[in-house]
């Protein structure tokens, strides 16, 4: 049981969850994740950690509501508890002095890439931050990145902020720089990571992604998170979740990611509106 300090919707469908977890907070490194269960009957869901306060003993997660389990999490309030919060799991993102690091965050990944960017900055790298979203109103935490970033770009699909289009516009971002970045890190949805990988592979820039497959135990026991990386079978939970983007078998990863999509969305199709909107009104 971990007490919830804060749970707020930061942009539509995107929630911030701060929980008490002193031991995890004292250990966690950028790129690691935790497994959370909203309640005693809850599914175990792996969630990237977006921030922590070692002294206060709390960790902060940013997650998107996509189905029943994240929905249950999204309905919890400060003062409630989550049944499980276990970690820190997975390996930390490799932090080094690379020169210029370009970081791309989209969706929940804007949150989870924040500690990576912070650590990369502290390691002496020049930071170019790229936010990717459907629309400007879905970008959050932008000001947290201001002090860390030497340059910030936005790519929005509706063109409401920065470049208009998909993450494939990344090529234009890179071309606009005086020198190409030495390393690229990407956190976000699978499409974002897969497409970034395509772009940067052509440009020959080393790129690492933080994969987000389905998991159960998160300790190597079940093997559902397996992914092909450089023709080898890897378990994202113990071998990753960070991998060389150019070696990931993306088509397979995408298919595995979507394995339970029908079951996940069943919740939206079958649940009464009252479940989502408690007491007849939207919670937020």
């Amino acid at each position, binding site marked *: 049981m971990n007490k919830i300090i804060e749970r707020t919707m930061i942009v539509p469908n995107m929630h911030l969850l701060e929980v008490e977890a002193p031991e995890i907070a004292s250990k966690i490194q950028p790129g690691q994740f935790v497994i959370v269960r909203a309640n005693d009957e809850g599914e175990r869901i792996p969630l990237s950690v977006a921030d922590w306060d070692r002294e206060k003993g709390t960790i902060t997660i940013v997650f998107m509501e996509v189905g029943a389990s994240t929905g249950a999490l999204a309905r919890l309030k400060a003062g409630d508890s989550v049944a*499980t919060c*276990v970690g820190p799991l997975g390996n930390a993102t490799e932090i080094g002095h690379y020169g210029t690091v370009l970081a791309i965050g989209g969706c929940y990944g804007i949150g989870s890439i924040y500690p990576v960017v912070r650590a990369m900055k502290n390691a002496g790298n020049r930071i170019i931050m790229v936010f990717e979203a459907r629309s400007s109103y879905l970008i959050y935490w932008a000001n947290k990145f201001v002090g860390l970033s030497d340059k910030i770009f936005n790519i929005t699909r509706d063109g409401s902020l920065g470049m208009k289009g998909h993450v494939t516009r990344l090529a234009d971002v890179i071309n606009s720089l005086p020198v190409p970045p030495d390393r690229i890190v990407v956190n976000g949805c699978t499409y974002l990571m897969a497409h970034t990988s395509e772009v940067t592979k052509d440009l020959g820039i080393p790129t690492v992604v933080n994969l987000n497959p389905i998991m159960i*135990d998160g300790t190597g026991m079940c093997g559902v998170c397996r992914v092909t990386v450089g023709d080898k079978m890897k378990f994202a939970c113990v071998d990753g979740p960070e991998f060389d983007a150019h070696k990931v078998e993306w088509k397979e990863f995408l298919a595995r990611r979507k394995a339970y999509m029908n079951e996940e969305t069943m919740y939206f199709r079958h649940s009464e509106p009252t479940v989502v909107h408690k007491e007849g009104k939207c919670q937020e």
Partner: protein
Amino acid sequence: MNEEKTPEKTSKIDLNRRDMPKQSPEMRSHNFNEVALGYTKELALAEASRCLQCKKPRCVTGCPVEIDIPGFISCVVKGDFAAGIKKLKEKNCLPAVSGRVCPQESQCESQCILRNKGGEIAIGRIERFLADWEAAEGIIDIPPRAAPTGKKVAIVGSGPAGVTVAGDLILLGHEVTIFEALHKAGGVLTYGIPEFRLPKAVVAREVDYVRKLGVKVITDYVVGKTRSIDELLQEYDAVFVGTGAGLPWFMDIPGENLNGVYSANEYLTRMNLMQGFQFPNSSTPIKRHKRVAVVGGGNVAMDSARTALRMGAEEVRIIYRRSHAELPARLEESENAEEEGVIFNMLTLPVKYIGDENGWLKEIECIKMELGEPDASGRRRPVEIPNSNFRMEMDAVVCAIGNSPNPLVPATTPGLETTRHGTLVANQETGKTTRDRVWAGGDIVTGAATVILAMGAGRKAARAIHEFLTTGKQ
């Protein structure tokens, strides 16, 4: 208990081993309730009365934890079930579990002198009867605890090995804390063995028992991640590692990452730990597949196949590369599976999984095998028959070919030596590892084995840890 008094022998003794009532195959293949229903009091008494109370009981030598088998059986004959369960628990703190899942036919019962005279005594069934009787009575006999020693022991993993060590050491007066990575205690008993073979209420009861003895059980705590062994050693005087064989093997054949291909661990964990068989009334999603192939011939393969049947599959096959005679599963389990309608494809090896355009399994390609010369294990080596490949349409494959030891603890503990199989190097008699103040036992040392062997290893390690804590010798 009065040891000298032998049970009264009457001339009316029915010499035959008593069957245990079971759910019918038609019924049970559609529900998750326990298959074997257990002895009634009358059956237990009748079976116990068959025991000859040998002066030199061979059954005891067949038991990895050396339970006083004639002792507890004679208590049953006298109708003193409370004494019987007490006798059992002297050596085995999980009798309701071992009474159900222990391979008695190859251990205690295989040694019974009555083997060819009406059948060996059903030791496991009587054991189970006593444990269930105690649970039904609701009396829990908490044995006296030695005076506190002030010593602290950390146990990593709440499976059969860890729970045994905990149960033993707490009674000796030490302070014991179990760390469990998952949200429920019990290890493989909880996530692996299905409800219909080992009800989760039984496991919960056994774990609850060590809790009542005073053991602290901390779930959601991954040693190796949340805290390392080295950090535990700063707070605890000794550490026992019982993290089990939790890293599934795959076969390294094309198509293994298709959707619909599961490790047995994943398949069973979804169903057992996460209660997937109740989906959508439970929260972890599962698929209801029509045709399921289970690769492997052990108990885990049988568990997976029988689970698939219960989930409504129309066709469930066991695919095993050797023949029926070599099936490593308990006879009882493979018979149960067969009775329920599982189809056995023996001498068959999958070579390739073929998927559809969305990345879902649709067909499996197998090759026929024949048995050649005996291999290192003494079993005849299966050899491929050239050009015997054939395909079967399948919606799901469950890969139940075994597990490696979980690498989390070895990988994060400097100086903790492993073998080339990834198991921990440990003294056979004491469980002592290559690290100061660290012991280990169960599957993490032996590789995937049985519940009772893990309990046996736990008992030995507990003895060694106790000696260290009281004399400083390790």
